[in-house]
């Protein structure tokens, strides 16, 4: 497969994944996601576990701070 064709295919897959994600988000926001049998991702409890682990790790490593100041400086660069 040519490099150009490969990149084009990767971009096409990304686009399809993005559309799929947006449709899943749209469905989830109606509250019907779990009952519809369409959404194959994690459920709310599993997402809580994901972010619980993530938050714990951030808490272990973070120097802490003020998010308002940090984002303001992020937007000044």
């Amino acid at each position, binding site marked *: 497969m040519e490099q150009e064709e490969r990149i084009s295919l990767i971009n096409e897959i990304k686009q399809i994944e993005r559309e799929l*994600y*947006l449709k*899943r*988000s*749209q*469905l*989830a*926001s109606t*509250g019907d*996601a779990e009952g519809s049998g369409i*959404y194959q*991702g994690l459920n*709310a409890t599993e*997402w*809580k576990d*994901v*972010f619980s682990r*993530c*938050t*714990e*790790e*951030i*808490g272990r*490593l*973070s*120097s*802490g*701070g*003020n*998010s*308002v100041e*940090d*984002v*303001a400086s*992020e*937007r*000044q660069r």
Partner: protein
Amino acid sequence: MRLVIDSNIFISSLDPKDIFHSECYPIFEKILNFEIEALCPALVLVETACVLRRRTNSVEVSRNVYKSLSSLPGINWFDITLAVAERACLIGAKTGLKGGDAIVLQVAEEHGIPLLTKDKEIKQRAPAGILVVEPDEMQT
């Protein structure tokens, strides 16, 4: 309930050492429970991942934050297209706010929903017609 969520809310929610963590985490829990549908420009994802990268000095943490937030069904991420940039420019021109502030306000304006932020400057200078709220105003 649909809200535009600013980067500072996600950062405070995800970092237990952030001074606003206890105030912002309940909002994030509502997103996880699908009680709040979040609409965010993709800029918010970048800012959140980058700030947490610097705070933790961890590439892995930053990647996890990006991957998890970008996949979370309760958040709709929006591209910053030229049309979005144009409307954000108008907000920036009108208010004198920073570019990133104008972009999050633009999403709120376009969808006719409030912006949730801890940034008082955005709240004070937002154009009339765009509702800007803080987490403590969300308590029911």
